[in-house]
């Protein structure tokens, strides 16, 4: 069952956004106040909690059932893949930098918004960043976190081939966002509609 109602009813200031965004994932294996509170709310409201709280049942013993993934988890992951694809293309076809920079910036912004919406943290930066909490507000989607199969010394790709590949990826991404919009809760529909529209528009740019 996927919840769309507020997790904590009757708490002033707690904005229901379909799925409460947890600002940080507690360290695995540690019961937090959130876990105790969840137990107190009890059977009246089933709660989606970060995986780190699994096993912190109030009564002990029985592990909690795995939390249901946010329906937009897949879209967020796919958006990050798209960002990685663009980063790789800008590495292998440097001349496309000026053209692709605003496009990938838009995808990053969308990923950040989806991260905020779902409470799913963005991946951390690959460079050493001891204080880095990727889910903190204003965090940027890091560049170059994953390069899909290009290896460390990919041969340069010509402009036409690179654009064709990106168009194909963008088209698939647009369809995915549109499908997500079709079935989304009301409070997410407009946001997802804009994402789908932006991707369709990008096809005009990728020429």
């Amino acid at each position: 069952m996927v919840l769309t109602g507020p997790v904590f009813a009757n708490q002033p200031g707690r904005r229901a956004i379909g799925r409460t965004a947890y600002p940080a994932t507690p360290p695995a294996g540690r019961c937090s106040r959130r876990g105790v509170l969840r137990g107190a709310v009890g059977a009246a409201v089933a709660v989606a909690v970060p995986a780190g709280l699994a096993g912190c049942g109030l009564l002990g013993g029985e592990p909690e059932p795995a939390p249901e993934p946010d329906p937009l988890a897949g879209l967020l992951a796919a958006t990050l893949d798209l960002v990685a694809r663009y980063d790789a293309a800008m590495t292998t076809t440097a001349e496309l930098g000026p053209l692709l920079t605003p496009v990938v910036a838009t995808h990053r912004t969308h990923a950040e918004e989806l991260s905020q919406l779902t409470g799913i943290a963005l991946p951390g930066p690959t460079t050493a960043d001891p204080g880095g909490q990727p889910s903190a507000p204003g965090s940027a989607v890091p560049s170059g976190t994953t390069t899909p199969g290009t290896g460390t010394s990919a041969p340069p790709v010509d402009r036409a081939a690179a654009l064709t590949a990106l168009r194909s990826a963008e088209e698939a991404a647009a369809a995915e966002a549109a499908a997500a919009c079709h079935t989304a809760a009301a409070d997410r529909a407009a946001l997802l509609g804009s994402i789908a529209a932006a991707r369709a528009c990008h096809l005009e740019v990728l020429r």
Partner: protein
Amino acid sequence: MADGWEQALTAEYAAIFAYGVLGVHLDGDAAARARDAEAAHRDRRDQLILRVGAAAPPVEPAYQLPFPVTDATSALRLAAEVEERAAAVWRAVLPVTSGADREAALTVLIEYAVRATRWRQAAGVTPAVPTWPGRPG
């Protein structure tokens, strides 16, 4: 929800009016695209009139344009603005629809957003794609 469809209809009236004003400043390929765009808005207007029925707002003799059109460049910019504003109205319909209605509204949002991008490209406006097409402000 009826409100959203009526606002969409008013937006289509305004778009048709705007294209009538800006089209005369364009020629060649741009003029043809403006005629196609106006025809698309007329079609959508007709669909909405059928849907909204007796509650349809009246068409005004004129609609206030966001800026004057004096040449081809301002005409292209206005065309982009018209599409973006129409896109915003259809985006607003998404949360209050579901199923086939929402799919139809998304199709329109996307169509208008893409047209806005093409007009922006023709006008040399950057970026050609806003971060959130159809999001007001």
